[in-house]
């Protein structure tokens, strides 16, 4: 077991070491008097060679170390998985110490350390694999950027933080890294910090997350109030002593954290704005880290919702929270899916698609399908990383983000086209592809669950599947097949594939998606295996051919409609947009994010600023000017005169001194003359010296 703990520690520490090495390299580089090179523009056209050979060499060294550290992490993760996953019984391994150092016998100390169980190994495997590929991709993508070393340092840090979150052993540790994930995404979204939009997006991401974080904090501290522990291993046994009401409070508050971090309705708009960061950041943010952290956490703390020894028995208190969560997931999936349909920027389409897919995972968790959620997480992580990497390559090739300024790129960038097509097919859930199997598992979980209104949730999920197929078809068709508009013909003509580091990761990912698609075929029992390692106490659902068949039909229908609208009968679109109501809904309502930002602004931002203004004037005008300056100062001047006769008591001398100062202050207040102050200062200093001498004598001669 010791070897597994050691491997686990290597997995966690290696990215941090990478970050430190990169920082040291950068420090050495810049302290030798090298000026910052590269573009400060923050545009995507980092392709033009402006930078010196010297800087390129620096870049190579930096990225090599960055990638190597992740490689070490990935290798140890694979070794750990090979050691740990096979076999029947999976013992939970823990290596921990008390974070606060409280002595034994008093306050329960909160552990900090490493927790190895099938869930964390499974998730760690996903994170390291994708992080490795995206790092390799970033090596070329970030070439020529002024902040190359800063990028790799932060990126390594991000990976390390996410891995530690995955392996955390207590709520405290999870929360620490949960917030640090937020910090790293803040730094990476605002990577081009001189762009106002990026600075704004970074702030928005952090604040929206913070709202969720605070509810999460409240949630697990409530748990601490009831159970006096935050240890993931100790907690399950203590859950049954809680009353329904207590469980309900905890359950709802913890979902609050997920809504912020995993971008669920109504706090999801930050994720689209987060596209201001470099593409590798979007890729890692959407595939395996950050937004998946919320889903992972719920899976980790599933014992709050379902009895630990019998995964089918939901706690009566948590039922309501689960229902709400499933509904939020369904609503998010649908709303974000619709938004992806009207969005024109390729990265934003993918961003909304992520939100929508995470909605699926939320549905699965809400309806009790922990396995289904983690299953969909895996397939989504793979194809979404693939889609983002290829999208970055497309942007790299044509220097624009807008899909309508592209077109017919199929022949120009084949090494990007084929992987992206595979990714989009998987996203659409084309029968037989990885997305199809995992989405089917989610829909099945909704279909078979006992949650009130589960059938409606299932229908919403199915509708979203249709929309997903539709928008996948849309962007693939518009980017790769459509004849480009005349005014954009020029840069489309010039487009060509990226270099080795830019294309290889997406090709590998494409192959991975294909492998997954084969592996997920029910014959190979992947889902059963997953079910067995994640929640052995739950009997897996048998495949339901009605659900599977209907979702296959829905997806094919979606692709068909997409082809009708964009290929066979594009004029149909024009006539649809000619309908006023449709046009308004699409352009004014959906494309403007259902006005969620405005509503949130009116609910949160405006009142906060209003209160801030009022309190500020209370502070300045009422407390300071009226009460202190007017009443107290003038009042004490009066009082001083009266008390002149009165104060002969115990504290005579000192009180007298203060009234003197008060009197003096009063006069000073009216005149404020410089001469007086320095006289006063001299007297005061002299008194003090006398006093100190006196003290000295007392001490010395006693």
């Amino acid at each position, binding site marked *: 077991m010791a070897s597994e703990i050691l491997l686990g520690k290597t997995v966690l520490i290696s990215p941090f070491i990478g970050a430190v090495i990169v920082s040291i390299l950068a420090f050495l580089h810049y302290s030798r008097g090298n000026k910052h090179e590269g573009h400060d523009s923050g545009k995507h056209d980092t392709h033009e060679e402006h930078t010196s050979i010297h800087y390129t060499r620096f870049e190579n060294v930096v990225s090599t170390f960055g990638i190597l550290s992740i490689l070490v992490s990935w290798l140890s993760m694979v070794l750990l998985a090979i050691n740990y996953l096979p076999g029947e019984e999976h013992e939970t391994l823990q290596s921990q110490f008390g974070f606060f150092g409280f002595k034994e016998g008093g306050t329960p100390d909160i552990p900090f350390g490493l927790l190895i169980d099938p869930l964390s190994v499974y998730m760690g495997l996903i994170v390291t694999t994708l992080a490795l590929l995206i790092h390799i991709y970033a090596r070329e993508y970030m070439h020529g950027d002024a902040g190359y070393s800063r990028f790799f340092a932060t990126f390594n840090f991000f990976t390390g933080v996410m891995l530690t979150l995955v392996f955390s052993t207590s709520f405290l540790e999870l929360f620490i890294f949960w917030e640090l994930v937020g910090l790293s995404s803040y730094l990476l979204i605002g990577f081009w910090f001189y762009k106002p939009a990026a600075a*704004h997006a970074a702030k928005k991401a*952090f604040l929206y997350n913070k709202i969720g974080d605070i509810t999460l904090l409240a949630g697990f501290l409530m748990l601490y109030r009831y159970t006096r522990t935050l240890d993931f291993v100790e907690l399950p046994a203590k859950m049954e002593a809680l009353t329904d009401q207590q469980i309900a409070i905890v359950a709802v508050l913890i979902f609050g954290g997920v809504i912020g971090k995993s971008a669920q309705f109504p706090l999801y708009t930050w994720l689209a704005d987060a596209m201001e960061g470099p593409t590798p950041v979007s890729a890692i943010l959407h595939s395996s880290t950050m937004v998946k952290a919320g889903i992972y956490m719920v899976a980790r703390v599933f014992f709050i919702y379902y009895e630990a020894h019998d995964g089918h028995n939901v706690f009566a208190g948590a039922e309501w929270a689960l229902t709400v969560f499933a509904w939020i997931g369904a609503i998010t999936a649908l709303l974000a899916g619709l938004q992806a349909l009207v969005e024109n920027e390729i990265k934003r389409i993918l961003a909304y698609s992520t939100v929508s897919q995470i909605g699926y995972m939320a549905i699965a968790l809400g309806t009790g399908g922990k396995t289904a959620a983690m299953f969909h997480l895996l397939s989504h992580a793979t194809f979404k990383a693939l889609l983002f990497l290829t999208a970055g390559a497309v942007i790299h090739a044509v220097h624009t983000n807008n899909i309508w300024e592209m077109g017919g790129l199929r022949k120009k960038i084949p090494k990007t086209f084929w992987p992206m097509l595979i990714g989009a097919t998987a996203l659409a859930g084309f029968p037989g592809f990885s997305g199809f199997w995992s989405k089917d598992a989610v829909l099945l979980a909704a279909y078979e669950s006992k949650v009130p209104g589960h059938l409606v949730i299932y229908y919403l999920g199915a509708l979203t599947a249709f929309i997903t197929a539709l928008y996948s078809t849309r962007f693939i068709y518009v980017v790769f097949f459509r004849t480009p508009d005349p005014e954009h013909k020029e840069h489309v003509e010039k487009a060509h594939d990226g270099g080795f580091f830019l294309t290889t990761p997406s090709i590998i990912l494409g192959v991975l998606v294909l492998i997954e698609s084969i592996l997920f075929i029910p014959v190979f029992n992947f889902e059963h295996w997953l079910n067995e390692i994640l929640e052995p106490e739950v009997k897996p659902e048998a495949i339901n051919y009605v659900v599977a068949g209907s979702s296959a039909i829905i997806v094919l229908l979606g692709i068909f409609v997409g082809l009708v609208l964009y290929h066979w009968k594009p004029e149909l679109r024009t006539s649809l947009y000619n309908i006023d109501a449709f046009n308004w809904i699409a352009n004014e309502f959906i494309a403007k994010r259902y006005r969620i930002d405005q509503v949130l602004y009116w609910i949160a931002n405006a009142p906060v600023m209003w209160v801030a203004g009022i309190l500020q004037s209370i502070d300045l005008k009422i407390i300071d000017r009226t009460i202190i300056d007017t009443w107290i100062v003038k009042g004490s001047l009066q009082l001083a005169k009266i008390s002149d006769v009165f104060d002969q008591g115990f504290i005579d001398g000192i009180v007298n001194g203060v009234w003197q100062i008060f009197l003096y202050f009063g006069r000073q207040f009216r005149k404020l003359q410089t001469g007086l102050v320095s006289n006063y200062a001299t007297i005061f200093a002299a008194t003090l010296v006398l006093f100190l001498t006196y003290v000295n004598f007392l001490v010395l001669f006693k």
Partner: protein
Amino acid sequence: MVFYWYLSILLWLPLIASPLTYMLSKNKVGWAKWSATIITFVEMIYSFVLWMLYTSKDRFGDKYVTGDGFVFLEKTDWIVVGKIKIYYALGVDGLSLPLIALTTVVFFASMISSFYIKEREPLYYSLMLLLEAGVMGTFIALDLFLFYIAWEVVLVPMFFIIAYWGGPRRKYSAFKFFIYTHLASLFMLIGIFILYNEGGGTFYMPQLKTSLSTYADVGRLIFAFYLLAIGFITKFPQVPVHTWLPDAHVEAPSPGSSVLAGLLLKMGGYGLIRLGVWLLPSSVFTDPSSHVRLVLALLGMISMAYTAFVALSQKDMKRLIAYSSIGHMGVVSLGVASYTSEGINAAIFMMIAHGVISPALFLISGVIQHNAGTRDMTVLKGLGNKMPITSTLMVFSGFASAGLPGLAGFVAEFLMFAGLFKSDMFGYGDTYFWITVVALLSIIVVAGYYLWMLQRVVFGQPEGLEVEHDGHWYELMPLWLLAFFILFLGWFPFVVLKVTDEFARTIIPI
């Protein structure tokens, strides 16, 4: 042989060095800063040595005096007038040890960052040394009389530092600072005399503690607590007696602000815990007729929420940081009010954490003012490109102050909330849960105004700002030092908490 004067060295070194520095550098003005820097550096190293000796007290306790729950105990008769007997008594326990180390660190950092000061250097540095002696005396005095003297001595150098080296409205602010805190300490003095009477006529704290817990009348002690608390709460400060703080901070020179925020506020917190919680018997807090905890909790909650909003509408960076300081001290009040061992630990840890974070922020605002010529956040823009190191440190300290995990502030905030959630809600049951909720929600606003500040100052493109270079070495070096401690305390809180927990356990065993 037993060596007695461990703490006297700590106290008298700066006190003697203060006039010497002034006299020696009468002709050689440049000597003053080096003299003061060396003295504070020696103090810092010495305080770390004391820390190490302290942690080994269980093994080598016989080498230095321990007694009455204190280590390095020194106790000699000082003033004896009739029945009144005043001791020169010094000692250290889990509460004061971290604060002593903090004092030396903050003074060392502030001393170096004062190198930009060019006028009346000898006076400035000798006042700073006097200030250090005063702050140190407050933290290690075991006799209430000595405590009060040290407490008052602090006001004088601080007054002159603001009044001589401050900004345009320095005179107003200096007087405001002086009057506020001095008046408040008068209430404290009355409180001290009540304790003296109730406790059978002694100023020596350990003795007083024993006699108070056996003889005294709870009602009168609660009254005394409120009198004492007025003194401490004005010093922290908490709403509504806080308005001196933003003014004093804005007008003080940045090293002065850093000492003010880093240490002078902590004297209030220290007093509250030392006199309010430790000295007074626990019945003051737990008696059914006592509303002490509720009052403290309300003060803390209001201070956190109120200042979070007020900070949001500030334009001056220093004012914003000053308001955030008030909010952070609300954590101390709430921690004490929770009356759990987590809460007490959190209160002490918050003093330490805030004691390294807020000086860093104030010094950074000083660096920005010196190099960019303004602290106005509506004018500042895009410093990230012009001053990369300062900006990095600013993002770092800003997040630390906003309570980012992994940095010092979070540990205190987390422990405070853990204490609040665990507590019986100030003795009033779950209905008073909303106090905790309001405090919790205010954290979002805190994050909001820090992010806003960073977005204004660090991000974006600089327009119309003439910034030629990053900070000088003497501006950046102290910041790195403080940043190191911020990070260190964030990941290794147990170094401090092991010490403070011993103290917290003596008050609340569970």
